[in-house]
């Protein structure tokens, strides 16, 4: 750096550097991150498994010979592989494989939709509070504190008695709680980003606040946010299962992983497969997300390794 001040024409040095850089073809931070992620065996395996699971959830229900709600009084409590039911049947003679696929689809959908909601709200809220700072930050973060201090189940029950149980409500209830942590993470990151020189430069160039938040702050938040998203999806799938388990979530004959496990647990002595298959599916799904999240964190933020 000091060489510049000695150089009579500082721009020539810069130009040489640029030309050289173009020839070597630099690796961006994201290239680096992807390379590191691809070397992480657990994360890559998880991605493959997850792709299989997601495909099964999307396509699977159209391919099964039985529908998830078809009740068959002659085929109740069938063990796996009996009578063409690959994973057996439940107390009403419904095909477990069909129910498992539809349940996986519902759980994944809730996880992804609720995460997107919490992502959008959390990022906007946190970035605004962190960037504007002062009294606005104070008020916005106190609102987060208040919502944090209300028990989750309180929201759910009130929403349920007001609007009745339906799937959209579950999205709302879970999203209403999950964006809080996201906004705190984003705010913390924004506070430290704000001090950086390139923000200063943007301000000096006359960019207005909104544009700085949109064009400079939010893209740089991507790293920690992506990591948190991959860890939020499994958290939401779990939260939905808890609600379904307590009878506050998805209503029959629809299924989610949570309702399947809840029903399986009731009959576990008579028909253990009704508990085992949904449990294994859920654990596998959650593990995939967690491994990918951990892998991403190591890849994006190498100093944590």
């Amino acid at each position: 750096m000091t060489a510049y001040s000695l150089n009579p024409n500082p721009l020539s040095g810069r130009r040489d550097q640029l030309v050289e850089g173009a020839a070597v073809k630099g690796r961006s931070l994201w290239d680096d991150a992807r390379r590191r992620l691809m070397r992480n065996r657990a994360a890559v395996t998880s991605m493959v498994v997850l792709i299989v699971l997601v495909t099964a959830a999307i396509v699977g229900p159209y391919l099964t010979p039985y529908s998830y709600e078809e009740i068959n009084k002659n085929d109740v409590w069938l063990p796996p592989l009996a009578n063409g039911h690959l994973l057996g049947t439940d107390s009403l003679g419904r095909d477990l494989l069909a129910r498992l696929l539809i349940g996986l689809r519902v759980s994944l959908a809730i996880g992804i939709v609720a995460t997107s909601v919490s992502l959008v709200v959390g990022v906007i809220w946190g970035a605004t509070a962190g960037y504007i700072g002062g009294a606005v930050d104070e008020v916005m973060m106190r609102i987060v504190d208040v919502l944090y201090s209300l028990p989750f189940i309180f929201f759910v029950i009130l929403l349920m008695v007001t609007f009745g149980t339906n799937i959209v409500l579950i999205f709302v209830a879970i999203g209403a709680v999950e964006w809080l942590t996201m906004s705190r993470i984003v705010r913390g990151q924004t506070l430290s980003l704000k001090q950086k020189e390139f923000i200063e430069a943007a301000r000096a160039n006359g960019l207005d606040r909104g544009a700085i938040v949109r064009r400079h702050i939010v893209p740089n938040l991507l790293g920690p946010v992506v990591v948190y998203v991959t860890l939020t999806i499994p958290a939401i799938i779990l939260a939905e299962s808890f609600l379904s388990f307590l009878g506050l979530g998805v209503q029959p004959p629809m299924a989610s992983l949570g309702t399947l496990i809840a029903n399986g647990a009731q009959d576990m002595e008579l028909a253990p497969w009704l508990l085992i298959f949904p449990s294994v599916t859920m654990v596998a799904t959650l593990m995939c997300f967690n491994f990918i999240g951990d892998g991403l964190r190591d890849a994006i933020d190498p100093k944590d390794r």
Partner: protein
Amino acid sequence: MLRFLLRRLMVAIPTLFVVITVAFFMMRAAPGNPFDLDRKLPPEIEANVKKKFHMDEPVVVQYGRYLAGISHGDFGPSLKYQDKSVLQVLKENYRVSLTLGLSAIIFASIIGVTLGILAALRQNGALDYGVMAIAILGVCISTFVTAPLLQLVFGSKLGWLPIAGWDNGAVKNLVMPVIVLSLPQIAIISRLTRAGMIEVLHSNYVRTARAKGLPEHRIVTRHALRAAILPLVSYLGPACAGLLTGSLVVEKIFSLPGLGKFFVISALQRDYTVVMGMVIIYATLILCLNLAADLLYAALDPRVRVT
């Protein structure tokens, strides 16, 4: 230190006040009321009952009355449990959640921190991978999978432990619920401890301690651990609040008469005062434990100054 405490309390008290207000009006905005029974009360009786609990007044007046009450510790009468105050009702139900929650926190902290330290000391060794596998599994296998499985194996197959029930807090009845509650916590605590420990073990002052020739166990327990459990401190605050106010799923599966289940029943029956009492307890716990975590943080890390 005192100024820090005062300033935090100045923020916490308005927060609590807003929580109470939001909860109060949300509760009242929900349809139905505590006297909406399956068997309709005659209108005169219903009017009398409402009058007794001041529910015939406008909501804002009721709100003022409620605030005046709690400002000197009166949470009002329960609307469902006749002739009992909210505090009496909560006291009757609190023991189960307190016993379970405390046991689970202590058990999970001891096991989690120990596993985390061992894993960090043998980083990338077999033990490390073992602990991390447990940690990942612990987060992914939710309580409603582990609970029925334990019941199946130790309750009905082996018959070592009672499948469910409280039985006045007999140790035998506590074992399975506490283990189920602890597992996810052990997973998170061991991960946090391991990450903190690995970072600290590479720091300069630990190298100095090694150079001075201190035995490894002293370095770990006296020097490294203090700094390594810092992330844990901020995690444990809210986690404790959650555990102490009852865990719905575990209470339901093991049929324990705890606060979580009680809260749901009260909310569904619109027992306004009891629900408000629980919300206040939960919010106070969260605020206090967060404050305690910050203080502990400052006590453990001399670089953090509380002013």
